Each structure stands twice: as structure tokens, then as C-alpha cells.
């Protein structure tokens, strides 16, 4: 017989209390570590962006507000000149390089990854070997990949120049990594080579979660394979692809290693990470460089928020117990 009065909530049992207490104790080392290693340095780095700190004298910077970002000086002639990252053409060049790289690499890697994943999803003799083969690029350290490809792309002794010449694609040898027109292409080639396996594996995992009966029903209904892909496979694998894309995009926006080692000092490939570090440690301008890295951080933060909102992607899958 249900009571009319609202039942009073008694609170937690000893068991629940014990588990909660343990949970906080268990989380403490991780939270502390992350605070020390990530939280504090990030705050300090953002702070440095508001100072004119010089790398060699790190404790002696003065607060200059948004000076690194945008400041102005009016000359005696009455003309105003602007300084700061936001009007630094090198910075915007880096931004453009980074965005260009990120979009192109993610699009290519997703499309190629999808093709590879679809191929691996089919069962054929030797599938295991193919899967092992595509793990090779992923396993090779980025720097090593850069060196291997630098050697292959070498303008005098590189095998790629040789091959393209032989098949008539080019008429003379090209210094791929040193020419502005081709250096971004070189970087993209290496990145696509290295990362497509990762995308392919993530997408493959998504594909394998699609139950087989759907395809069997479609086969019985006589649906054209292209339509099957478009209307069945693609929507069902979309969550996996969306997650893979955002992870890849974030990684691509942060890229440093490959660009630094394969195409050093090339203005056609210098990314935001590269130019930020250059300012911090080559030009000794820690404050200015920090402003750049903070902007990079903000761009990434906004990108992911927008992506999650618009794409309605659930990253934590926190529906569990």
C-alpha cells in the first residue's frame, strides 16, 4: 500500500561510503600528477604569454598584458604601427600551413583508411599478413620515418626521383623537401603513409561492430553494393569515424616532429608548433612564443568544443555503471 508522505532518503550505506572514500584516495595520485605535470605548466605558459620574458632570464619578465598579441606604437609622423602575434605575417603563414596540412591529411587519411578498412573487413587468404604489413608504418618512430623518406625523396640519389623520371612523371629531378611548392606535399605523403594504418584500424573496429545479418538481409533484397555502403555501412560506422577524425585532426594541428626534421626552416611547411618553439628557443623570445602556443591551445579547444557540439559525438561513452 503506497504511502502518501514522501519517503525520507537515508543516505549512504557503509559499503557505499567505503567505496567512495577509496575512489577519492585512488584518484588523488593521478590528479596530483596531472596538476603538476600539465595543469601548472599550462597556466605558467599562458602567463608567460602576457609577459616579455626572455628565455635566458626566465624569472625576470614583466607583465605586458596583451602586448605580445597586439600592441601599437604611434610614430612621430602620426602613423600607427602594429606589433604582435595577431599581426605577424609569419604567424598567420604558420596558421595557414597548419590548417592546410590538418585538413588535407585528415581527409586523405580518412578516405584511404576507409578503403583499407573495407578491404580488411573482407576475409581473404593472407589477410593476417596484410594487417601486419600496415602496422609497420605505424610502428616506425616519426623521426625515423622522416629520415627514411628524406632519403627516398633526396634530389640527387633519391629513389622516388629516379622512379618518377623512369615512368615519365617528371622531366628533371626535384628537391621535394627543399622546394616550397612540393615540401608540403612531401610532409603530407609521409604523414599519410604513417597514419593511414591507424585510421584504417579504428574504422575497421567500427566496421566489425556492424552485425552481419544486415548485409545478409540486404543481399537477399538485392541491394546494389554501392547503395549498401552509402545507406547501411556509412551511417553505422559514422560514430567510429567521427571519433577517429577528431583525434586525428587534433594530432595534425599539433604537428611538430615531422615538419621539423623533414623540411627544416621551410616557410611553406612551418606549422604553429614549429614557429612557437622557434620563437621560444631559437629567438629567445619566451613571452612572444608563449603567446603563440596559447593561441594554438585556444584554437584546439574551440575546435573540439564545436566538433562535439555540432557532431553530437559522445567521447566518453559514460553510460556504464
Amino acid at each position: 500500500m503506497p504511502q502518501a508522505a514522501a519517503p525520507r532518503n537515508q543516505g549512504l550505506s557503509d559499503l557505499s561510503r567505503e567505496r567512495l572514500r577509496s575512489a577519492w584516495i585512488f584518484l588523488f595520485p593521478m590528479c596530483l600528477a596531472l596538476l603538476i605535470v600539465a595543469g601548472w605548466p599550462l597556466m605558467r605558459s599562458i602567463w608567460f604569454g602576457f609577459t616579455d620574458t626572455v628565455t635566458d632570464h626566465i624569472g625576470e619578465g614583466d607583465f605586458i598584458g596583451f602586448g605580445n598579441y597586439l600592441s601599437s606604437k604611434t610614430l612621430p609622423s602620426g602613423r600607427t604601427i602594429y606589433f604582435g602575434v595577431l599581426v605577424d605575417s609569419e604567424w598567420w603563414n604558420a596558421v595557414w600551413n597548419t590548417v592546410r596540412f590538418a585538413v588535407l591529411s585528415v581527409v586523405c587519411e580518412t578516405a584511404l583508411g576507409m578503403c583499407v578498412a573495407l578491404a580488411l573487413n573482407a576475409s581473404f587468404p593472407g589477410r593476417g599478413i596484410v594487417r601486419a604489413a600496415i602496422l609497420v608504418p605505424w610502428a616506425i618512430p616519426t623521426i625515423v620515418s622522416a629520415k627514411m623518406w628524406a632519403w627516398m625523396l633526396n634530389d640527387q640519389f633519391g629513389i622516388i626521383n629516379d622512379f618518377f623520371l623512369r615512368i615519365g612523371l617528371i622531366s628533371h629531378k626535384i628537391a621535394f623537401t627543399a622546394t616550397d611548392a612540393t615540401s608540403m606535399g612531401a610532409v603530407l605523403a609521409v604523414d599519410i603513409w604513417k597514419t593511414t594504418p591507424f585510421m584504417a584500424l579504428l574504422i575497421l573496429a567500427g566496421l566489425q561492430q556492424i552485425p552481419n545479418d544486415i548485409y545478409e538481409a540486404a543481399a537477399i533484397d538485392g541491394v546494389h553494393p554501392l547503395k549498401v555502403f552509402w545507406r547501411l555501412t556509412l551511417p553505422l560506422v559514422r560514430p567510429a569515424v567521427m571519433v577517429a577524425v577528431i583525434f586525428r585532426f587534433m594530432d595534425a594541428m599539433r604537428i611538430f616532429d615531422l615538419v621539423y626534421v623533414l623540411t627544416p626552416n621551410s616557410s611553406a611547411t612551418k606549422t604553429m608548433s614549429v614557429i612557437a618553439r622557434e620563437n621560444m628557443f631559437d629567438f629567445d623570445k619566451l613571452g612572444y612564443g608563449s603567446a603563440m602556443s596559447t593561441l594554438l591551445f585556444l584554437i584546439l579547444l574551440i575546435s573540439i568544443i564545436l566538433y562535439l557540439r555540432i557532431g553530437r559525438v559522445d567521447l566518453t561513452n559514460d553510460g556504464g555503471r
Partner: protein
Amino acid sequence: MPASVKTGAFYLFIAAIVTFAVFPFYYAIITSFKTGTAIFDISYLPTSFGLENYLSVLKSGGKALTWDDVFHFNISGFPLNFVNSVIISTLVVCLALLIAVTASFALSRVRFRGRGLLMMTILSVSMFPQVAVLPGLFEIIRALGLFNKMPALIFSYTIFTLPFTVWVLTTFMRDLPVEIEEAAIVDGASPWTIITRIFLPLLWPALVTTGLLAFIAAWNEFLYALTFTLDNAHRTVPVAISQLTGASDHEIPWGPIMAASVIVTLPLIVLVLIFQRKIIAGLTAGGVKG
């Protein structure tokens, strides 16, 4: 389109993928066996099998490395870089796993307010651009006197190994059946006992996989290693390879570079191939299921 043409095209595609994937490494291997001017002859197939490049890379203190040197820790040059990388990556991974195991238990098995937010925060830390924390890390490392010392890298690498291991372990722990935990509760096990005597024995394959993936990430790291080390004695492998110089400023020692690349990559490839299935499971747990 007749079936045979389709199958033919399919296998052609597969062959293209495999070739594209493996060729650069294959080419590095055959280059590493060439010595002297043979390097400058372009060939698609192996032509020689000299080990000179390897010997030049494995020089320690100006001469070839011997087992004696190893046992007396009298190592320098590239072998030292290799040892540095091994030590740093191993220590970082052990540290991360130690902290992550208990944290993942809390995140996967105990309901508490703010859990989702904490998970998102951890995820976002792993998305930090490394360069965005570089100034702050530099300051701390300088202040602690760790510049150009190994602890500097162990300290900095935690920023990406810890979130990653927590994330992946949480996913694995979530998959353990509730009833086993409840049976342990009825038996009188405390959360710590549950972790150590029930979950860890069941999870150790996952620990190995996670550790391996984190190890590879630490092994690979370049930016912090470049910025926080000064001399060769403290460099790790990626930085060492990027800075291998030849006899003169304009001569790039491609032979030794390829040899070093092979030395560094072969163990990784072997490990990855052995643990393929587990690695793929770990990667997809982190990336797909969330």
C-alpha cells in the same frame, strides 16, 4: 563487371597497400647494407650486404662497442642514446601504470558526481599541444635543476602517458563483470583487495598492451627530448638520429642514418607484430568505444 576482374582489382589494391606500407622500411634496410659510394647508386633490389654502417653507428667512445663496455656501463655514442631511451621509456611507463591502475578502478567501477567531467578533463589533457606547456615545463625543469638530465624527460612524458594509460585501462576495467566484484564484496574484500587480488590478475594482458603502447609513444617523443637535453650523453634515440652528422657539414651520412633507423625500428616492429591483436584492441578501445 565480371567477378574475376573485380577480384583482380581487389588483389591489385591489396598489393599496392602492402607495397606502399613496407617499401620505405625495406629500402632503408637495403641502403643500410651499402657502403661507401655504393649508396649513391640507386637500386630497387639489395646489392650488397656490408655491415660497416652498423659498426659505425654502434661505436662507443670512438671504437666498436664490446660486451665488456656494456657490463661496465662504459657506453657512449649511439648505444648510449639507445640505453637512455630504453631506461626513460620503461620508467615512464611503470610510473604511469602504477598511478593509472587505481585511478581507473575509481573511474570505471565507482559512481560519483563529476566522474564524466573528470574523464573529459583527462582526455583533454592528452590533447594539449605539447608546445603549449613547453615554457611552463622548461621553467620547472630549470628550477629543479633537472635540465639535461633523464628525470626531466620522465617528468615531462607523464603528461601524455598518464592520461592515455588511465583512459585505456578504464575502458578495460569497465568490461569486467559486475558480479565477480559483488561476489568479492560479499566475501569481504575491500576495494584495494578487489583491485590487487581479483582485477589485476584478470587484467594483466591489458596492462601489457597498454604499457607497450605507452612505451612506443614515449620512445617516439621528440619535442621535449630536443628541448630538454643538451649533450649526446643525455639524448634519446629520436633526437640522436635527427642529428647524425657526417665528416663534413655538407655530407649527410645516409648509410649510418639508415643503419641507426633499422636498429631502432626492428625491435619495435617485432614487438608490434607479436602483440598485434592486443595492440589493435588497445588502440580501438581508446579510440572507438571511448
